[in-house]
């Protein structure tokens, strides 16, 4: 029996809390107004993006600033497949978007993972910007202004769900549940990955890449696998965005999107898998409240980040009054008997 997985809840109570959270989300549309159903769909999309990035940041210690590229690319793939007036079914658009993003992540990862530390950050940033410049400077996807698309149809086995057939107050429900199902599936998939051999090796890479290589692991291949999976999952998030908003523009690809996903991770807690979800929800709600008070959106965002970086170093899930979700730095979990002291991942070799 190998030790527990660092990023996952360490106790039954912790798991209960996670599933309770998902159950609350499942019940929420019955109590909330359509506005909040829409807002939480947005939050779940952001949570999916942050969750996919957490595989790299929390799981491997790779801080990528180009993750938004895969998110935006997927949204653009939906636009290409399902342009305005020619809606395609979701069983076509979702796999296509995820495959496209995975392919892009495979290529970009293969090049950028040759570098590490600061270089990795800068190279992923530049790659993201390369994708951005393709959509921003050419007429490929509507240029700077972006373009409308036909939201993918919710159809399966010949049956199509027409949202217009629903009462007005329930029209946002199908998209909401599509997002929730994907979020839960993604959480489950990442749990499975973190428990698998791949996850174990990635944790080893995070702690000490050189030592893992000395043990005979081809760490590059493992990192590339993680990068590609994270890209595909970011693609699912991008697809979700297209599905909810029916609109694409180059800002989806820009690096601010990646930085926001990093912020969600940091805010929620870098040391837990649930952290990015909590962080995304907290941030989107904070933003919504702030916008009712002040028009200075960036000021609020900047202040929140400063507070998170300066004061709350382990994020919301790392706060002490949540005992079941272990924090990254405190090493509260008893699973460190074999691991060396927690250090940064970019140990030289």
């Amino acid at each position, binding site marked *: 029996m190998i030790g527990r997985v660092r990023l996952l809840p360490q106790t039954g109570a912790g798991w209960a809390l996670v599933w309770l959270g998902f159950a609350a989300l499942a019940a929420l549309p019955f109590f909330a107004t359509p506005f909040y159903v829409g807002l939480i769909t947005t939050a779940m999309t952001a949570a999916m993006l942050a969750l996919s990035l957490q595989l790299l940041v929390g799981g491997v210690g790779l801080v990528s600033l180009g993750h938004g590229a895969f998110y935006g690319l997927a949204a653009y793939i939906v636009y290409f497949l399902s342009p305005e007036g020619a809606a395609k079914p979701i069983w076509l658009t979702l796999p296509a978007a995820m495959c496209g993003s995975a392919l892009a992540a495979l290529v970009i990862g293969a090049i950028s993972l040759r570098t590490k530390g600061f270089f990795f950050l800068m190279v992923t940033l*530049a*790659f993201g910007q390369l994708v951005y410049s393709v959509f921003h400077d050419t007429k490929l996807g509507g240029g700077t202004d972006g373009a409308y698309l036909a939201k993918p149809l919710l159809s399966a086995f010949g049956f199509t769900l027409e949202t217009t057939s629903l009462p007005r107050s329930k029209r946002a429900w199908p998209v909401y549940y599509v997002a929730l199902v994907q979020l839960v599936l993604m959480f489950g998939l990442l749990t499975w990955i973190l428990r698998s051999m791949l996850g174990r090796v990635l944790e080893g890479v995070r702690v000490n890449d050189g030592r893992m290589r000395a043990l005979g692991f081809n760490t590059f291949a493992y990192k590339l696998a993680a990068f590609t999976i994270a890209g595909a999952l970011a693609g699912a998030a991008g697809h979700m965005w297209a599905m909810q908003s029916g609109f694409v523009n180059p800002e989806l690809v820009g690096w601010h999107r990646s930085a926001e996903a990093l912020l969600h991770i*940091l805010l929620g807690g870098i040391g837990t898998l649930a952290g990015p979800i909590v962080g995304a929800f907290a941030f989107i709600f904070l933003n919504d409240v702030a916008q009712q008070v002040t028009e200075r959106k*960036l000021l609020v965002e*900047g*202040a929140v*980040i*400063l507070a998170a*970086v300066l004061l709350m170093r382990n994020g919301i899930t790392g706060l002490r009054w949540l005992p079941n979700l272990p924090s990254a730095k405190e090493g509260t979990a008893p699973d460190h008997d074999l691991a060396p002291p927690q250090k940064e991942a970019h140990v030289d070799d």
Partner: protein
Amino acid sequence: MGPGHKARDSKSKQMVAQLLNGLQYGLLLFLVASGLTLVFGVMGIINLAHGSLFMIGAYAAFLLTKMTGTLWLALPAGLLGGLALGAALEWSLFRHFAKREHLDQVMLTFALILLAEELRALVAGNDFHSVPVPALLDFPVPVTSGFAYSAYRFAVIGLCLLLALAMFLWIERTRMGAKIRAAAENPEVVDILGLDARRIHLVVFAVGTALAVVAGILAAPLTSVYPGMGDGLLIISFVVVVIGGLGSIAGAFWSALLIGLVDTLGKAYGPAFQGTGPLGTLVAAGSGSSVYILMIIVLLWRPTGLFGQRT
């Protein structure tokens, strides 16, 4: 002289103008990228807000020109103000983030970008503003018969070269420069030798900030000032640092010139390939992203950049 000769003549004139543009752009890039690479190399800090310093410089030029009617005051004010701003930022924030994780540094500097943009919106609004070229330099300089180039752009080239030379002498020939080189190469040596690492960091950050602010001031009359103008420059500066190699001033210099020329020429001549077969279409499509393609090639060849140490 036939019309063909005339067309060729104007083409070569255009070529010279584009080369000069590329040189001038590359030199401005150097001012920004050298600060970025020094701060990386010496302090181990990734500063995403470096582009915002450039923007602050440009808006300072705009505001000062509007108030005083001339750009001349902005230069010394920007240099001194930049040094002071850099020192204040280092002392209050960056000093405490030198040992923190990348993610924390990224988030801190991302927050600073957002705050700088908000400040810019408060002070100068969200419109584009043009900054007049100083009257003293607002004339064309004849280069060859029938071809003239803006005196201001020449002045920018000259001033940037002067600053680059000063940087070079400072780094290579002075005591402080030797300490900085030591710190960039091996931070532990600084501690072992009993040098004051804090002072070195303060100086490096202040100088890097001042260079970015000055670059912004010089660029203001050329590009006009607009929201988010630091963002694009930041990314290109990263590309410069990646190609040049971390912490290398010489690397930043040559790679900035390379990027400046490739970007300018790519954007000027790439689109002309449109419609000359499938290869031409590909070239035309890639011309806007030529610097990124260059970066990919360099990385595949040498993952630590052209002038980087092989660690």
